[in-house]
C-alpha cells in the first residue's frame, strides 16, 4: 500500500487533476465535435479504417440515439417502456418506403434528411397514439402496453404484403453514411440534452421523483409525459431510418422484442437518467457484442451475466443519475455561483 495521502503527487492525483483540467475546459467539447465531424468525412473517403470497423462505428452512433431516447422515458421519467424497437420499426419502414417508392431515385440522396424526418415524425405520431391511453394509468401498465405495441407493429408489418410482409424490404439505397450518422447522433443527443435541461425536462424528472407532488407543484404531468414520450419515439424513428438505410434490408424480425431488450440493456448498463451513461452504454454494448463474436452463442450468455453483475454491484448502471459535466449547460452548472456574483455586485454600493 502506498501512502497516497501523504504525497500529493501520486498517479491517482495526477489523473484526477488531468481529468479536472479536461472537463473544466468546455470548449474542448466543441473542438472534439468538429474533429469528429471532419473524421466522419475523412475516414470513409480515404479508407482510414477497414469497412467492418466503420460499420460498427455507425451502429454505435445509431445505438447511442436509441439508448438516449429510451433513457428519456425509462431513466429520466422513471416509466418503463419496453417496446422501443416498435418505434424504430415505424421510422425504418416509413423512411425506407419514402426513399424507394415516393422520392425519385435520383433525388433520394438529396432528400435523405426528409425521409429521416418523416420516419421520426411517423414514430412520434404513433408514440402519441400509444401514450394517450397508456399514461392514463401509472406504473406497470406502460410496460404492458409498449410490449403489446411492439408485437402489434411486428405482426401488422408481417401481414401487409404491399410492404413485403414477413420477407421485409430488400434493396434499400445505402444512404446512411458516416457523416449522416455522426450528424444525426450529435443533433439528437444535443436536443434531448436541451429538453432535459428545460422546464419540461425538470417536469420529466419530477415525475420520476414523485408524481403526485409534481402535479401539486403545478407541473402539467400529462402534457410533460406526452411530450417526453413523443420526443423519445421521434428519435427512435430517426434511428430506425438511419438503420434501414445502412443495413439496406429490413424485415419485421429485425424489430422484435429482442431488439427492444438490447436497447434496454444499453440504457441500464450505461446508467439511468444520464445522457453520458446512454452514450457509454450504447458504445460498450455494441463494441462488446462485436468483440465477443468469436464466442458464438456464448456471447448471449455472457451479456446477460454482465447485466446481472452490474445490477448486483452497480444497480443504477455505470453513470446512474450522474452527468458528464460537458453535457450540462454552462448557465445551469454555474447557476448559483452566477447568482451569488450578481448579488454581490448589487449589494456592493449599499454596504
Amino acid at each position, binding site marked *: 500500500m502506498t501512502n497516497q495521502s501523504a504525497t500529493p503527487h501520486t498517479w491517482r492525483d495526477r489523473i484526477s487533476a488531468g481529468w479536472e483540467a479536461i472537463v473544466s475546459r468546455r470548449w474542448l467539447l466543441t473542438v472534439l465535435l468538429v474533429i469528429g465531424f471532419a473524421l466522419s468525412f475523412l475516414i470513409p473517403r480515404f479508407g482510414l479504417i477497414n469497412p467492418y470497423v466503420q460499420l460498427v462505428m455507425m451502429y454505435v452512433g445509431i445505438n447511442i440515439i436509441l439508448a438516449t431516447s429510451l433513457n428519456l422515458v425509462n431513466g429520466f421519467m422513471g416509466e418503463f417502456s419496453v417496446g422501443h424497437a416498435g418505434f424504430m420499426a415505424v421510422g425504418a419502414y416509413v423512411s425506407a418506403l419514402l426513399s424507394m417508392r415516393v422520392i425519385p431515385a435520383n433525388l433520394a440522396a438529396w432528400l435523405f434528411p426528409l425521409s429521416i424526418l418523416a420516419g421520426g415524425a411517423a414514430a412520434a405520431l404513433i408514440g402519441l397514439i400509444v401514450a394517450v391511453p397508456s399514461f392514463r394509468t401509472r406504473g406497470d401498465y406502460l410496460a404492458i402496453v409498449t410490449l403489446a405495441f411492439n408485437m402489434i407493429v411486428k405482426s401488422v408489418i408481417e401481414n401487409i404484403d404491399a410492404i413485403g410482409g414477413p420477407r421485409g424490404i430488400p434493396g434499400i439505397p445505402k444512404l446512411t453514411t458516416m457523416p449522416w450518422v455522426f450528424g444525426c447522433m450529435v443533433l439528437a443527443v444535443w*436536443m434531448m440534452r*436541451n*429538453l432535459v*435541461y*428545460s*422546464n*419540461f*425536462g*425538470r*417536469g420529466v*424528472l*419530477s415525475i420520476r*421523483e*414523485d408524481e*403526485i*407532488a*409534481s*402535479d*401539486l*407543484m*403545478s*407541473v*402539467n*404531468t*400529462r402534457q410533460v409525459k406526452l*411530450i417526453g414520450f413523443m*420526443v423519445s419515439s421521434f428519435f427512435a424513428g430517426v434511428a430506425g431510418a438511419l438503420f434501414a438505410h445502412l443495413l439496406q434490408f429490413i424485415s419485421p424480425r429485425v424489430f422484435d422484442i429482442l431488439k427492444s431488450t438490447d436497447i434496454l440493456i444499453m440504457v441500464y448498463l450505461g446508467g439511468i*437518467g444520464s445522457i453520458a451513461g446512454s452514450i457509454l452504454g450504447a458504445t460498450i454494448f455494441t463494441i462488446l457484442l462485436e468483440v465477443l463474436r468469436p464466442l458464438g452463442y456464448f456471447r448471449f450468455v455472457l451479456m446477460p451475466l454482465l447485466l446481472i453483475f452490474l445490477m448486483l454491484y452497480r444497480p443504477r448502471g455505470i453513470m446512474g*443519475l450522474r452527468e458528464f459535466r460537458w453535457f450540462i*449547460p454552462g*448557465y445551469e452548472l454555474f*447557476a*448559483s455561483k*452566477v*447568482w*451569488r456574483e*450578481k*448579488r454581490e455586485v448589487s449589494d456592493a454600493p449599499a454596504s
Partner: protein
Amino acid sequence: MLLQAKHVTHYFGGLCAVSDFNLEVQKGELIGIIGPNGAGKTTVFNLITGVYKATQGSIQFEGQELVGRKPNEITTLGIARTFQNIRLFKELSVLNNVRIAAYSQTNYNPLEALLHAGRFNSAEQKDIDTAMDLLAVFQMDNFADEASKNLPYGLQRRLEIARAMATKPKLLLLDEPAAGINPNEIVQLMEFIQWIRRQFDLTIILIEHQMRLVMNICERIKVLDFGATIAEGFPIEIQHNPKVMEAYLGEGGEL
C-alpha cells in the same frame, strides 16, 4: 371570500371519509384543522387540491369551482400545499426543487426547449434568479446545489414550504408542519409561519396535532372526527368544548 367549501362529502368505496364539510376562509386568515388520527383532515386537503374529486359538494376558490379540476390547475389558480410526510424531489437539487414549482410560470414552448432558442435563454435565466431569490428569502441559498435528500430534516421541511411558495400561492395549506420537530423548536416554527404569512401576504390553513401551535397562532379552529365536523370556533371556545375534549383526548383531558 377566498375559499368556500359547501357540503363537501367524500367516500372511499363505502367508507365516508369526509361528511358535509363546510368551510369559509376570508383573505388573510389563519385557520387550523384538528382532529384525531383518521379524522379526515388530510382528505380535506386532498379534496381542495384536487388529488381526490369530492363525491358531493362544491369547493370554490375566488369564485371558481375546484371540484373536477386537475391538481396542477388548482395549484396554478393559487393554492399550494406541503405534505404530512415530506415529499420533496429527493434526487434533485434544492434549486431544481424550487424551479419545478415554477413550471406554470415559464412561457416557452417545447420546440424552444429542444433547441434552447427563442425565449428560452432569457426565461431560464429569470427563472433561476427568481428561484435563488426565493431560496435566499428562506435562507437556503447556500444549499442550492445540494441534493434535497441530503438536507437535515428541519431544512427539508423548510424547503417544502419554499417550494410551495414558488408556485406563487394565495392560499397555503400546511399539513402537520410540526411533525417530527422537537417541542423546543415549536416556538420558532410558530414565528416562521407568522413570518411567511406576513412576508407573502398569505392565507393559511394548517392541520396540526401540536395543540400549543394551533392554539397559539390560529384565529379559528375546526375540529373533525370520523369525517364529521364536531366543533368550530375560536381557540378558547375549542379548548372548553366538551365534545372536542371527549373526541380528542378521551375523558378528563385538557387542551
